[in-house]
C-alpha cells in the first residue's frame, strides 16, 4: 500500500426530501467522523437562504469557516446534477483554504424522489428518506432511492406512531435497490450513525 496522500478530498453527497433529516444526519456524523480522525468540511445547499449552513455554523460541532453555503435559486437538483459548477467551486475553495482536507460533504437542498447527484460533483452519495413520509416511498422507485450508493431510512422511532411497517419498508427498500445497502437511523438519538460513518469510511476513505 502506498502512503501517498490523495491529491483531493473525497467528496460525498447527502440528498433527500425536505424534512427527511439530512442536516440532522450531518450533525450526528460530524463528531463521529472527527473522532475517527477525519478532517472534513461541509457545503450546504438551500433554495434562497443559507439556513442549513447557519444551523451547522451555530452548532458548535465544526469550525464555522469549514461550512460553506450554496444558494440554488431554483430546483435544488439543478446545482447537484445538471450544473454542479457552484458546488464544485465551493468545494475547490474549501480545499484551497484547508490543505489536508480528507472529506467534503455536500448537502443538497430538500428535493423530490427524482433527485440524484452528478458523479462529476461527488464520488459517492447518500439518499435520506424518513418513515413519516410513508412506507410506500421505496415502492415508488424514485431515482434517488434506486441510484444512491446508500439509502438511509431515518426517524425509525416514529414508525409505530405513523402506522408504518418498518420491517416491510426496509425489506422493500432492499428489494427495489437490488440489494444495495440500506441503513435505518434515528438521527436525533444518534442511532445507526456509526453504521453510516462506517459506510462512508469504507467507500471513499478506504477504511478496513
Amino acid at each position, binding site marked *: *500500500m502506498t502512503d501517498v496522500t490523495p491529491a483531493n478530498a*473525497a*467528496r460525498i453527497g447527502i440528498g433527500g426530501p425536505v424534512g427527511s433529516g439530512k442536516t440532522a444526519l450531518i450533525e450526528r456524523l460530524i463528531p463521529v467522523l472527527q473522532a475517527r480522525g477525519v478532517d472534513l468540511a461541509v457545503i450546504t445547499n438551500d433554495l434562497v437562504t443559507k439556513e442549513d449552513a447557519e444551523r451547522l455554523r451555530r452548532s458548535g460541532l465544526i469550525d464555522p469557516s469549514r461550512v460553506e453555503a450554496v444558494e440554488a435559486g431554483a430546483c435544488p437538483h439543478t446545482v447537484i446534477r445538471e450544473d454542479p459548477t457552484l458546488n464544485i467551486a465551493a468545494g475547490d475553495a474549501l480545499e484551497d483554504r484547508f490543505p489536508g482536507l480528507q472529506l467534503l460533504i455536500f448537502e443538497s437542498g430538500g428535493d423530490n424522489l*427524482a433527485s440524484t447527484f452528478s458523479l462529476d460533483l461527488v464520488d459517492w452519495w447518500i439518499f435520506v428518506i424518513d418513515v413519516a413520509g410513508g412506507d410506500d416511498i421505496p415502492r415508488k422507485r424514485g431515482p434517488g432511492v434506486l441510484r444512491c450508493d446508500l439509502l438511509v431510512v431515518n426517524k425509525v422511532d416514529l414508525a409505530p406512531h405513523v402506522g408504518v411497517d418498518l420491517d416491510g419498508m426496509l425489506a422493500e427498500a432492499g428489494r427495489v435497490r437490488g440489494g444495495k445497502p440500506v441503513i435505518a437511523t434515528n438521527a436525533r438519538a444518534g442511532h445507526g450513525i456509526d453504521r453510516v460513518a462506517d459506510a462512508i469510511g469504507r*467507500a*471513499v476513505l478506504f477504511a478496513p
Partner: protein
Amino acid sequence: MRVIHRILGSRRDSGLADRLHHLAHHGAVDVLVVSSTDVARRRIRATTLAGEEIALALPRDEPLFDGAVLALDERHALVARVGTERWLRLVPGSQAAALELGYHAGNLHWRVRFADGAILVALDGPADDYLVRLGALVTDGQVTHTVLDEAEPC
C-alpha cells in the same frame, strides 16, 4: 489494500504499449473492470479480475478512462477496462407517440441522444425500470424498443 493515486497513461501510449505487451505474454496484466456508470467517480474501491482489492483516489482533474494504466512495473501491470454504455433504443410509431415519449424522457431526466427517428436512452439500470415508466406507450406497442451497447451501430 493498495491505493492508486494517479493514472500513468493509456495502454495505447507508445511508451507503455510495448511493456504491457511483454507483460501480457507472461500473464502479468491484471484488469480493473469499471462500469460506464461508475467511470466518472474519482474514488472507487473494487476487486480486480485477478482478485486484488484496490482503491482509486484520483485527482479531480484526472478522470478514469478505458485503457488507463493504473500500475506498471517489471513484473505486473493493472489496466482499467470500462464497460460499454448500454442504450435503450425507443422508436415511436406516430407523431403523437413521439411527442409523449419526448415529454417522458425530459420529465424523467433521462440522458438521451437522437438517431434516425429514435431516442436512445443511456441505461443506468435494468431496461425494464425505464420501460415501465412509459406505461401504455410500450404495452400498447406505440413505442418499440431494443437494448444496444456502445459497440453496436445505432
